């Protein structure tokens, strides 16, 4: 385990062409890390995420991705991800191969990945068109009942990146609240980077809390508000206004590009990104 800057963590662990998962199911989405990947100009990534959300819309629109594995690609509560659509429908800024699953299939694939099984089973994809367009979806026969059960190959990212509430001085990570498939994505990966709201002396973790022990974490990076505009339970709420505003920002290529150049490429780090937004001045004036 290594505590370092976000710049160092991405520079050290994320390489062009890799399969990477930035997980977090509506909650604890690692926006800061995604922005840093964009700043460092990574290319040809195979992006994996159950719900691509705004962060993958941004990474796809900025040309970081060659492929996307996902199960629901919308702007939650708002509508479409326009950059994802533009990539799929019109190959802009480049072609994007998609590997589409259901949530249950993606969750099973991460679970097999964490358990180092080569595949996972589910009673899934019944009467569903995805097996016809995603050759990863196969089946096995039950050795006891003879029935056929759908399978998905294990998902083992080269790098998984999470955002969490706290790390302690040893690098143990505490996650609290809606947890999605983060633990599975973390344990399925070859390398794990975790950005955290803060580093504390002792995690105030209840006995059965969700804790990732320090020896499975390759880099711990303190990034306050690192999930913004998503939320971190106990720290800040989701900025719903930003999710709504994104619909307009991302609808056209030029407004999208201008926004990304100003707020992501034009800022040195996450603190700079936050300061570049209206929300920052508003919140800071309330301090």
């Amino acid at each position, binding site marked *: 385990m290594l505590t370092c800057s976000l710049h160092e963590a991405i520079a050290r662990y994320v390489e062009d062409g890799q399969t990477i998962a930035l997980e977090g199911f*509506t909650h604890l989405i690692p926006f800061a890390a995604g922005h840093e990947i964009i700043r460092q100009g990574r290319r040809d990534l195979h992006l994996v995420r159950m719900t691509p959300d705004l962060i993958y819309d941004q990474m796809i629109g900025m040309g970081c991705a060659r492929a996307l594995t996902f199960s629901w690609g919308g702007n939650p509560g708002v509508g479409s991800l326009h950059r994802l659509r533009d990539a799929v429908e019109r190959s802009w800024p480049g072609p994007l191969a998609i590997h589409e699953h259901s*949530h249950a299939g993606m969750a099973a694939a991460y679970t097999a990945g964490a358990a180092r099984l080569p595949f996972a089973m*589910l*009673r*899934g994809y019944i*009467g569903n068109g995805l097996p016809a367009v995603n050759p990863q979806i196969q089946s096995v026969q039950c050795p006891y009942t003879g029935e056929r059960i759908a399978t998905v190959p294990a998902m083992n990212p080269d790098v998984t990146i999470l955002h969490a509430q706290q790390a302690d001085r040893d690098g143990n990570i505490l996650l609290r609240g809606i947890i999605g498939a983060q633990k599975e994505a973390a344990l399925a990966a070859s390398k794990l980077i975790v950005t955290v709201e803060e580093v504390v002396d002792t995690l105030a973790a209840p006995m059965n809390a969700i804790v990732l022990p320090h020896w499975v974490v390759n880099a711990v990076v303190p990034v*306050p*508000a690192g999930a*913004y505009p998503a939320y971190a339970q106990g720290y800040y709420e989701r900025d719903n206004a930003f999710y709504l505003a994104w619909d307009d920002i991302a609808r056209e290529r030029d407004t999208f590009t201008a926004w990304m150049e100003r707020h992501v490429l034009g800022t040195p780090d996450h603190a700079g990104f*936050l300061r570049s937004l209206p929300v920052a001045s508003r919140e800071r004036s309330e301090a």
Partner: protein
Amino acid sequence: MAAPAYTPDEMMTVAAARMLWDGCVCFVGIGVPSAAANLARFTHAPNVVLIYESGTIGTRPSVLPLSIGDGELAESATAVVPLPEVFSYWLQGGRIDAGFLGAAQIDRFGNLNSTVIGDYARPKTRLPGAGGAPEIAAHARETFVVLKQSVRTFVPRLDFCSSAGFMEGAGARGRSPATGAGPRAVITDLGILRPAADSEELTLCERYEGVAVQDVVAATGWPLKVAAQVETVAPPTPEELKLLRDLHARTRAAHNRPAILRALKRLP
């Protein structure tokens, strides 16, 4: 007192809410399903158990979540479990009474498309995709589909099948590995369709006040079967309308509240 005026959307939401019974364990999606399920909780079904696919079991939000994983869902839940567990132990495990689904397209057997309009490889419109719906459709003991009725939505043939209804009908689903019974009703902004006993083809069984049967037929992209007797759905009661409008008003206020970014105060 004259009954208050209401919109077709409000009627649809109220009709969907009435489908749930007290104590029902309901897997909820965002949008009208979420509004309907919470309205049921605030009216006739105070003990309905709501589960969102984000892993929040027995959640009791005071406002409607904008995303499926809003913080209030976790704060007010009986349990917050990992997402793989939601789908394996709870949904596939047969623990869900009712699933609420929406879609971009539906066919006469209640099969749903939420994936693409046009060809999958070269889509005219890439939709968000199915998310949790394929397995909700397969494994909830029964499902309710909620969507506005139009010939663009109620189509003779889906561009893509995301979630199984009665498949080809006439018992096809019963012969499949799907463990749930399939759609019990399709609730639209015009009326309520239910599967016919043998063919399992969706049939107009109920219409709302002021809606003519031919309005519903005209909004359907296939020759819609109509029940011998089409009942009229009771309009929203004043209490239902008030609670629904209060819920939406609370929701709007909450979603417009600025995110309090305490962390920003710690920025260098």
